[in-house]
């Protein structure tokens, strides 16, 4: 066997060995940074329910309310929901056509740590035209859009405060 071939094999083998090490380290790396954790507003909440947050981040947009053919995104439609008051202040949730539930129940999209919120308090969903609607789910203390207590599903104007217990949320572009 020629000297050259053997030299190439020698160096090639070392390269392959190191390549394996590098690939293994890459696997570890993806293991470490595999899940995305959404930053919840309050530290207390984040500490209490890190798994919840992680799960929500890892979850695919659950149950598309409308198939993508149902209508294209309107101009000026809100793109995110922002918590502006309460323990979750600063939390944002992207609006992707999915229903957002709010309440103290652990399986809500936004889990409220608020004594004045019911376990299943309200939900926010897009109707056929892509207009976002808020609906009270028979909560104890009610859901307020601006100052009026909701009795029927109501379209949400951009930037209008929705009050649930001590928490205030609004839709923004």
């Amino acid at each position: 066997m020629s000297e050259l071939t053997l030299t190439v094999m020698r160096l090639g083998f070392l390269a392959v060995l190191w390549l394996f090490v590098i690939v293994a380290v890459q696997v570890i790396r993806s293991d470490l940074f595999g899940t995305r954790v959404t930053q919840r507003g309050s530290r207390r909440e984040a500490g209490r329910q890190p798994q919840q947050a992680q799960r929500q981040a890892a979850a695919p947009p659950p149950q598309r309310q409308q198939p993508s053919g149902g209508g294209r995104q309107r101009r000026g439609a809100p793109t995110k929901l922002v918590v502006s008051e309460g323990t979750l202040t600063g939390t944002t949730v992207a609006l992707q056509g999915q229903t957002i539930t709010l309440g103290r129940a652990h399986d809500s999209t936004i889990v409220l740590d608020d004594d004045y919120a019911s376990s299943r308090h309200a939900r926010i969903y897009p109707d056929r035209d892509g207009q976002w609607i808020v609906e009270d789910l028979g909560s104890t203390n009610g859901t307020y859009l601006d100052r009026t207590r909701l009795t029927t599903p109501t379209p949400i104007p951009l930037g209008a405060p929705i009050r649930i217990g001590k928490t205030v949320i609004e839709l923004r572009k």
Partner: protein
Amino acid sequence: MSSTTNTSTHHTSTIGSIGTPSRRNTELALLLFAVAIPVFAYANVGLAINDQVPPGLLGYGVGLGLLAGVGHLVVRKFAPYADPLMLPLATLLNGLGLVVIWRLDQSKRLQALPTFVSAAPRQLLYTALGIALFVAVLIFLKDHRVLQRYTYISMMGALVLLVLPLVPGLGANVYGAKIWISIPGLGTLQPGEFAKIVLAVFFAGYLMVKRDALALASRRFMGLYLPRGRDLGPIVVVWIISILVLVFETDLGTSLLFFGMFVVMLYVATERTSWIVFGLLMSAVGAVGVASFEPHVQQRVQAWLNPLREYKLSQQGVFGHSEQSMEALWAFGSGGTMGTGLGQGNSDLIKFAANSDFILATFGEELGLAGLMAILLLYGLIVERGVRTALAARDPFGKLLAVGLSGAFALQVFVVAGGVMGLIPLTGMTMPFLAYGGSSVIANWALIGILLRISDTARRPAPAPAPNPDAEMTQVVRP
């Protein structure tokens, strides 16, 4: 993993827990890679020595691939969330070991020895046995916490395993170290390798119960937490046992491994640095004390301090001196940075034990510093995954067991590599997975099996919490 649907009339979507991905496909891909590398090495050795691709290449590749495949399928079935890296890493190390053992089998110098036996087929058999034990561990050990019930039985088992080599008629004195037992018709066995695992079970069970007493009941003195006298009991007992092992079995490595493992686990259980200080002091005192009167240990220390003088004495035919330490160092030296290439070194000049205790010298010569570092990193990655498993484990017993097993693995690698490279005196232990030796390969596959079981439990997504959202009533706003 389940996405539950809400039974109420609302179209509320509920987000179920999304499990961490099981990563079995990553494992499979890495495993294919890990089998391909030794096959490449095998072809390389054949081309270098005989100028042809070795005829056994296909059989060897298929054999290793089958073993790894069986391991993978069992993991997929019985431990689906287990760590994706450990199996490929162990397979790669085992495969590389097989290739180098086969390469040493081809050596004319070694074939001329009267004690020569073709070791590679046997090692393949041991590997198969090891994988069988690995599979058995994964199938029959459904939950590692079961082991906790056998804390004190494990202690007795470990003691028996440690004492076995001293039983007359059963123990075999192999070149000074009495760490083997010979079973007629089956060959020799190194019970210390198995004792390592059993002892880790005992330490984990024991420390889990006692760690609060060990951690909290202490006085502070000069920045160190001094434990109470009566809490020192267990560490003193383990120390005495490891000293006894050193005295009667005259093997520094085994002794260091057990004591080191205990100190590591003690530190992890109690978070007290003082235990490490005590442990280091006690092992230093013990080693120096024993070395002052035990001739075999003295000899090893001499060979470590003055390898060249030992080499000369051995060349002059003076009995009881070994030229191997120096030869190993020369092998590393002649390998240089990039090595001589597989099959092209002269490490077979280390005649006896070239494929077991000194196999690292062959790697050092033929793969060079670059290859040796990669090998050590592979070991490091196994240990890292073990410690990561311990961090992820939710139960204290599993944490301690994972730390103990990976700590013992790391210590063994350190003791052997350090011995061969002349950092510490040489011992009679072997490099896990790489070296020729049935006990070592089989026991370490079992060790990997237990670690995978713990990591499966640790990485398995937690069951969803009980639906109890209304534990506190909603307060009513009273204006």
